[in-house]
């Protein structure tokens, strides 16, 4: 199905309504609370149902789907802007999808820290060296063996 589309009214005997080219967009999210290994968490539009989620994943992503549970998360209206007006954060629906066939899913680390080796003589390398020197200066004297500065001597 699709978002913001006026569905025709169904009367007995009408053919099956089919909407080609869905308007629904799902985003995979990292679970806030610990979830079982076969559960995947999605943020889905408010108009989507459990059946929609199942068909979407099976047909478009070819993922075997087991039970699906959904809930609607209320977005707060408490925050105020610089004009003291209340600002509403949008509501969204969360779907907890359990994978079939004993598959597991672990949310990966999409932002790993990469050691970038800058070319010698470039501005970035000079900056990195400067920051390293500054960090070295902040560290205490290693010859004191970890004792703080409070003690005399």
């Amino acid at each position: 199905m699709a978002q913001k589309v006026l569905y025709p009214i169904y009367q007995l005997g009408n053919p099956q309504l089919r909407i080609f080219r869905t308007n629904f967009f799902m985003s995979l999210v990292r679970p806030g609370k610990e979830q079982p290994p076969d559960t995947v968490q999605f943020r889905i539009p408010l108009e989507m149902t459990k059946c929609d989620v199942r068909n979407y994943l099976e047909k478009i992503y070819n993922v075997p789907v087991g039970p699906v549970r959904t809930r609607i998360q209320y977005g707060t209206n408490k925050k105020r802007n610089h004009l003291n007006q209340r600002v509403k954060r949008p509501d969204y629906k969360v779907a907890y999808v359990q994978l079939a066939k004993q598959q597991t899913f672990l949310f990966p680390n999409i932002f790993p820290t990469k050691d970038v080796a800058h070319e010698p003589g470039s501005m970035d390398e000079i900056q990195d060296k400067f920051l390293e020197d500054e960090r070295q200066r902040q560290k205490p004297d290693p010859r004191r063996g970890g004792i703080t500065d409070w003690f005399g001597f």
Partner: protein
Amino acid sequence: MEKSSVIKICRLDDKQLLSVAAIANCGCQKRKKKTECNTADVLLTKRVNFYIETTQLIAVCKSVINIILNNDEQQLQSMVSASNSFPSLVEQCRALHSSHSRRGLEEFFDDPKNWGEQQVKSGAPWTAKQLRTKSNEDLHKLWYVLLKEKNMLLTLEQESKRQAVPMPSPERLKKVERSMKRLDSVVNERTEALRLLQTGVQNERPGEWRKNCLGQAIW
């Protein structure tokens, strides 16, 4: 002058080319006409070769697809033995493979090479002019390609907000959204044209112009 004549010849139909080539064979003395006839000959031979090659290629592709669908080893061996007459085409067809991608939930994430990058390169969005040249099947497939790309970008955006890290290249989202809007407009143009041609009705669903409580005119 010679360039314009060459261009004119290139635009000719096959039948017209044949007539030009026939004039060449009569043996015209003038230099200008000779060059024209030479180019016509060359073009004709090129076109004929191209047609032969494409028909051969189509036939080979059809047989390959039949073999893959029916899992026939005998047919494959017979085709391979027959192919020794034109090995180049078959060797090109061996590079074809029609396997489905079974990637599943990995498609919600970018290529692992791009994880952790500050910027990811991406091309220009689709324009309506480019999309109008595509067939309906192609547009349908492109819609779902764009849909998956947008899902991937939305997951990336949410994860970047969670980790308090800037999202690499957020302009990709805008590009995808614009492409999808243009695709939608092109498809709607086509359906409206079809409906007008077939039925002559202006609106998709029967109704009338009414004013709602806000004073807006709505069908």
